[in-house]
């Protein structure tokens, strides 16, 4: 699950040095880019800092304020792009979109509030820009692109190192289940998945044209699992007649 943008303050050397990485779990530093500002959401850019790109996440640490730093995992970076159009943003930058928890639950709250208020709610931040300071100084496109292109390339390479976590069993092909016994076994072995059966005689499908009279009651298996947590849209289902009306 995406966790979005978060504060990052773990610095080595009594809190003044490089970010402390999760090296035990294979996190490695891939690229360091000094003199980069970040603009979080619609806010004005922070004073410059250093960008650390690891094989897991992007970390930015402020130079002035040792307590200030942000991190976002590649799993939460929906897209990144090279933005050079002054109409789009005054400074050339790496533009990123961040997937937040809010995206997955509800989409109602608008960012503007959180971004304007004093207290910055990082969990609602959906955009971030990385602005290399040499980008502003350099007029000539021929010199400047290297930093931006390098950053873009590093972002791409690291993003590709972070595919969606594979759900258990996904790569074994599909564990189709052909009998209820098998399902009970599955349920027994299941970890966080709750299985509910409900024989639902009202749920008849394929009964209408009379070509045959195959049994058409449908047994339902419901998975109570956050992966399928879309309760708010499922409520809509009761209104549409195309498919099943489920009973719990």
């Amino acid at each position: 699950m995406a966790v979005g943008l978060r504060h990052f303050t773990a610095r080595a050397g009594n809190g003044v040095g490089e970010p402390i990485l999760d090296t035990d779990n294979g996190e490695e530093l891939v690229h360091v880019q000094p003199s980069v500002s970040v603009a979080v959401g619609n806010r004005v850019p922070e004073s410059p800092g250093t960008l650390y790109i690891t094989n897991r996440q992007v970390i930015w640490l402020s130079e002035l304020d040792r307590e200030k730093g942000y991190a976002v995992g590649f799993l939460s970076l929906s897209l990144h792009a090279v933005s050079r159009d002054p109409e789009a943003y005054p400074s050339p930058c790496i533009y990123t979109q961040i997937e937040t928890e809010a995206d997955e639950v509800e989409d109602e709250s608008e960012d503007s509030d959180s971004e304007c208020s004093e207290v910055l709610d990082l969990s609602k931040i959906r955009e971030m820009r990385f602005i290399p300071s040499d980008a502003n100084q350099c007029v000539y496109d021929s010199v400047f692109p290297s930093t931006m292109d390098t950053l873009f390339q590093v972002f791409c390479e690291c993003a590709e190192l972070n595919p969606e976590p594979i759900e258990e069993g996904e790569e074994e092909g599909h564990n189709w289940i052909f009998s209820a016994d098998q399902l009970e076994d599955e349920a027994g072995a299941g970890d966080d998945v709750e299985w509910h059966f409900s024989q639902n005689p009202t749920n008849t499908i394929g009964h209408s044209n009379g070509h045959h009279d195959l049994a058409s009651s449908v047994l339902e298996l419901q998975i109570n699992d956050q992966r399928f947590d879309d309760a708010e849209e499922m409520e809509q289902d009761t209104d549409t007649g195309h498919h099943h009306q489920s009973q719990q």
Partner: protein
Amino acid sequence: MTYLFFSYFKDLVGREVTVELKNDLAIRGTLHSVDQYLNIKLENTRVVDQDKYPHMLSVRNCFIRGSVVRYVQLPPDGVDIELLHDATRREARGG
């Protein structure tokens, strides 16, 4: 991700596509590359709904994480229906 769509998108490199994201952003651009997770790189991109995302107006290069993609609008002449049917049947048997 399966080979079928990976190889299909590889053949589309260089063509114009519109990638629609789950956050409703739609980005049109030239397909630069695709990987096995269907991460998509576009070039010369532009945002379709510019009113909604004015600041995305134009970016030269854009990397889109495969998992945030909802749809990709394909160029009509970039779809060989017979080929797709065959590949799908082959994959269905193999899989």
